[in-house]
């Protein structure tokens, strides 16, 4: 166990906050190796199958050692490492492993904010009398996860999310090309940054360690040859604002280890995201619309499972010339596939202002609220004597209440897919097309590239 700045600092044990960041290094490939031990010690990468332009989504340390990085084209990765074992993404497996990991975390943490497969922020503030010092809890979590699931963990402990994530990154030595120290072969000791020592801890590290810094700011800092966090922290806020505008103030705060974001449970999680890199750049609506349909089904399922509704949907696109555009549409507590799909098409129409092919498309639903709280006059619920809620049929009032009818249809579809699986109801035609342009969605996706969407939630690591 390591404790940076044991003596504490000027802030002392400020507000008694204790935030953990749990980072299972190379989570996807590690999980794949747990189910296929023959892959151990071999360079492994996860990438969508059957497409030369697919990019690497996750990779093992051996693959990284061969010079492969996340986001690299599969073709290039194979050139660098001919022995590379390519595995298709297995979201169900990763989700199962994440659930198993969170079961352990839930023993200790009252509030967990998942962040992509396996990764999570934990807020253990106020649990010291119950579980003991934070660093001991981190060690216990580390040991139990290793024993129960077989996953190595890097755990960072600090008073906020920013520094705990940086500490976990430093602990894992996982800083991409600018690797600070080699990843230890076995045990990765939890790393705690004492309250008040955030700035001193961050200062000697490269900017790569600092999370939540936009790519364009990183690039400009690189142009100015400002490589260390401490070098940026030494610049006055007014000078940073003169260069970066308003984000300069936030950059100053972050380099000093200041972060006021709370740890939020999934119920109040800010947004869900899904993205996809196309096999062949295109701006053909016949390919993009069915893709949006698939995305919105995934996002809609997530929202409904968590009883959430979205009030904003954003579509972001990367053009083939590496410029990007994004547009959002405001929703009225949307959680049905058709609502989301309609909004996604509108947002895509707004975003696609150029006659240039698209290489990547993503959909994000945000401003999430609890759904189904407000009861509708034409869709009543009854509580049975046993206390169970029984939904009565929507009252018959013709075509005037599409919300209720659509919701009833969505419930029926969800019931079928929950019982028989998602593939049993592969969408064949696009429902609700008002222009009469019904088309075969499955064919559209197959003609796209046959890839699976890259990820749901935060990107896989």
């Amino acid at each position, binding site marked *: 166990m390591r404790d940076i700045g044991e003596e504490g600092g000027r802030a002392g044990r400020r507000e008694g906050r204790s935030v953990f960041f749990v980072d299972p290094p190379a989570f996807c490939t590690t999980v794949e190796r747990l189910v296929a031990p023959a892959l151990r010690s071999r360079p492994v990468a996860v990438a969508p199958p059957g497409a030369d332009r697919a990019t690497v989504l996750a990779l093992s340390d051996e693959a990284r050692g061969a010079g492969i990085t996340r986001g690299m084209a599969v073709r290039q990765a194979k050139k660098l490492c001919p022995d590379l074992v390519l595995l298709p993404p297995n979201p169900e497996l990763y989700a199962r492993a994440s659930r198993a990991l969170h079961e352990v975390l839930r023993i200790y943490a009252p509030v967990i904010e998942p962040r992509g497969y396996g990764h999570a922020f934990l807020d253990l503030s106020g649990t010291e009398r119950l579980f003991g010092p934070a660093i001991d809890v981190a060690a216990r979590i580390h040991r139990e996860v290793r024993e129960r699931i077989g996953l190595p963990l890097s755990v960072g402990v600090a008073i906020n999310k920013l520094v705990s994530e940086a500490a976990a990154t430093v602990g894992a030595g996982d800083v991409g090309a600018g690797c600070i120290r080699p990843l230890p072969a076995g045990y990765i000791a939890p790393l705690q940054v004492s309250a008040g020592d955030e700035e001193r801890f961050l200062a000697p590290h490269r900017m790569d360690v600092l999370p939540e810094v936009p790519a364009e700011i990183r690039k400009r800092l690189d142009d100015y040859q400002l490589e260390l966090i401490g070098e940026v922290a030494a610049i006055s806020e007014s000078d940073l604002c003169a260069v970066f505008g308003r984000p300069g103030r936030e950059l100053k705060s972050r380099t000093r280890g200041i972060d006021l974001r709370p740890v939020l449970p999934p119920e109040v999680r800010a947004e869900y995201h899904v993205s996809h890199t196309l096999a062949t750049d295109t701006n053909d609506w016949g390919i993009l619309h069915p893709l949006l349909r698939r995305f919105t089904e995934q996002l809609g399922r997530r929202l409904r499972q968590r009883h959430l509704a979205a009030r904003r949907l954003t579509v972001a696109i990367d053009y083939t010339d590496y410029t990007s555009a994004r547009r959002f549409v405001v929703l009225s507590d949307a959680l049905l596939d058709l609502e989301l799909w309609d909004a996604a098409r509108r947002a895509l129409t707004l975003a696609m202002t150029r006659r240039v092919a698209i290489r990547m498309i993503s959909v994000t639903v945000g401003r999430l609220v609890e759904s189904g709280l*407000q009861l509708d006059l034409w869709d*009543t619920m009854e509580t049975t004597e046993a206390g169970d809620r029984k939904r009565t049929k929507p009252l018959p009032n013709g075509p005037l209440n599409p919300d209720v009818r659509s919701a009833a249809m969505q419930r029926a579809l969800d019931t079928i897919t929950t019982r028989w699986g998602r593939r049993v109801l592969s969408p064949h035609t696009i429902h609700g097309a008002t222009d009469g342009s019904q088309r075969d969605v499955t064919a559209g996706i197959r003609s796209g590239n046959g890839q699976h969407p890259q990820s749901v939630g935060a990107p896989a690591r």
Partner: protein
Amino acid sequence: MKFTITREKLQEGLGAVAASIPTKTTLPVLSNILVEALKDGLRLSGTDLDIAVSTTIPASVDQEGAITLPARKLVDIVRELPSASIKIASSGEQRVSIDCGKSRFKLLGLPREEFPAFPSVKFDGGWKVGSKDLLKLISHVAFAASTEESRPILNGVLWELKPDRMRMVATNGHRLARMDVPITGAGGTQADLIVPPKALEQIRRLFASDQEIEIARSENHLGFRSASTQVFTRLIEGPYPNYEQVIPRENDRLATADKAALTSALRRMSIVASDQTHRIRMAFANGVCKLSVQTPDLGEAQEELAVGYDGDPLEIGFNASYLLEILKYMPTDEVRLTFKAPERAATCEPVGWDDPASYLTLVMPLRLID
């Protein structure tokens, strides 16, 4: 065109018409007011193509004619002029001069031919209703109409005209307001009309409460006419939802409360309620209503209110803003709330209302997760 008018009369006429002028439009002439100098006075008209308003004001007309003038500029100029008579004269098709005291303006307009024609609605054989009854219906019901686009039909107010009564109903799917007013000698035939609330708001604003209003419909327009003012609106087409089936008949738990006290308590609770759901909890038992709110990221609040309630204990959740809005339009100091179950519609009615009209509002609860 040449006429003289007092500043007050012109300002009054412009005020009546200006509200129908759209703030943003792709058709430039819609930003203008049609000014027509007629034998019997000055007629001002404006439209956004959904609603058209026309009003006639007394003026001394020396020469008849018409022109359209930019509404906002004309309103601003007249507002700033001193209280004196204003002389307006046109020179050509697109220019007018405005003289008042020592002030002189020249304003460019557009030819009247570009102004869209008003809907042709024949008032012969229409209905005649007292504006007092109509305004009462509008002011108590129109607020409940939906403003969301997901169910367009709910963006309108259902107006049922029958020989012996008028009824208005509006709902957004979560709350509903219904009012009946008995009438006599309205004429016309029985009709169900779905009217945009914006048009009803214009009616409420433009017609005094002691007038008789003539009402007539064409195929998809509705016209309102008094001695000096006409309003036309496009009707919303389609069948209105069967609202009768959602009005609860079996609510057997009754509570009476002081409107002002309940409103104050709800206002206090809603400060701490979620900005998204406005959820508050109301627990009725033994003559007391315990209001409480708990918002995880913010805090909590409780308050007790004396009410007339002797039914079984009941806990029910509501969107506080829906309740506050309903209470705002309740015409009496005391209100009666009725319930059946926590997930069934609740009603709110005035108690002791000395009026021939009958008024009912209902609101669906918010589900209490715990």
